[in-house]
């Protein structure tokens, strides 16, 4: 299986980082191509004409887009170090929560950034908190979302350790240990793992990240 794997990604995109983390966890060698999203390269546009987005995996010249689709493809193509569980019901639960993160938690979190005025922002924050509480419940009695070792759902939930960088650099406490003890403990466990650390926003790039996010919020709300 030593055929060519390329990943078109972007260092500040949690979706892109998910795929990097999965590749590293599975020990799949790959070539990483950093995309400037304001100036997309011809290769990206050629391989992903529908969405023109990252992450994009190209394996043996065949492109696969959408982070969750890519994660499943990786697990099905490279059978060692599986990130999804074997049991169909456990797999269904992993996919269910992955969808919850992408279709509920992430859009609600985005609303916080897009809120106009304190009241709207507080309402959005409350919604995020409610969803985080639901998600945190899934950690009960487990080391990681995926059980005893890190897997699919830990990878998909990577947005949660984004907040850790904010705390380290910006001093902003996003996730209170009182309100979310299990998630906070999970984050601390994860950032001790080398490959996980390689796939989160480096402290020295934090300011760039904030600027990018502000830019994205402005263009999304205009």
């Amino acid at each position, binding site marked *: 299986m030593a055929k060519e794997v390329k990943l078109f990604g972007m260092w500040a995109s949690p979706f892109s980082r998910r795929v990097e983390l999965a590749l590293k966890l599975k020990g799949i060698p790959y070539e990483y191509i950093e995309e400037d999203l304001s100036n997309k390269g011809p290769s990206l546009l050629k391989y992903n004409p529908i969405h023109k987005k990252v992450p994009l995996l190209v394996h043996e010249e065949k492109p696969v887009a959408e982070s969750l689709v890519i994660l499943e493809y990786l697990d099905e193509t490279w059978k060692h170090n599986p990130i999804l569980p074997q049991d169909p*019901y456990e797999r269904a639960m992993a996919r269910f929560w992955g969808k919850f993160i992408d279709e509920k938690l992430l859009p609600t979190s985005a609303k916080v950034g897009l809120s106009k005025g304190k009241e709207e922002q507080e309402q959005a924050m409350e919604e995020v908190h409610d969803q985080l509480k639901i998600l945190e419940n899934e950690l009960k009695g487990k080391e990681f979302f995926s059980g005893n070792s890190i897997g699919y759902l830990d990878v998909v939930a990577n947005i949660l350790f984004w907040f850790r960088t904010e705390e380290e650099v910006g001093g902003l406490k996003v996730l209170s240990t009182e309100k979310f003890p299990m998630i906070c403990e999970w984050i601390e466990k994860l950032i001790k793992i080398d490959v996980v650390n390689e796939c989160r926003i480096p402290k020295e790039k934090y300011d760039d990240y904030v600027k990018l996010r502000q830019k994205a919020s402005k263009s999304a709300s205009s």
Partner: protein
Amino acid sequence: MAAKEEVKLLGFWVSPFVLRVEWALKIKGVKYEYIEEDIFNKSTLLTELNPVHKKVPVLVHDGKAIGESFVILEYVDETWKQNPLLPQDPYQRAMARFWAKFAEEKIFEGAWTALCSQGEQKQKALQQTREAMEKIEEQLQGKQQFFGGESIGYLDIILGWISHYLTVWEEVGSMEIIDPAKFPATMAWINRFLKHPVIQGTLPPREKMLVYFHQRSKELGSTSHGWLRV
């Protein structure tokens, strides 16, 4: 061959998401008990089995509950191996999943938004839906029978709502999404899909659907994110 396993499906008569699961179970010949839910007056059973979303469909197999039609479909495919829904090849599977997500986000959401909105928002949604349908039309060109090949597969099931719901929504919303002249491959696929023995007899009555969606689209107005937001 597994021993007799209990399969229940919580549904709602007009939900296209529930239909997907029914089609999958029927294609595989899995016996199930159907339980009709009044989603406007949710039972404790539903809220217990799907506490996160409180929505149908919910599949209950051997006492374990699973929500979300996409997730249920993959579970059904992995649990009952006969008549596979997804292709065998990983790349083909990735393509099926990609197009399923694309269709759900651009066509289903687009058509639904167009149905429930007016003016500029409606026009924008219609435009998005039509453009996305053109991509599906391209995918269907040269296909023998279905996305799944000779038999109905995962992507046919995900997109199957189009064959029965789209003209209803077009009528209710006074709009045209598919001009038959411009979508010959899609029309041919729709006809084959509707004639399929598994599909026949599963579709909710058109007249009832017209009444239902007239009412729903008025109620929901322009706050139309997601299905049946109760």
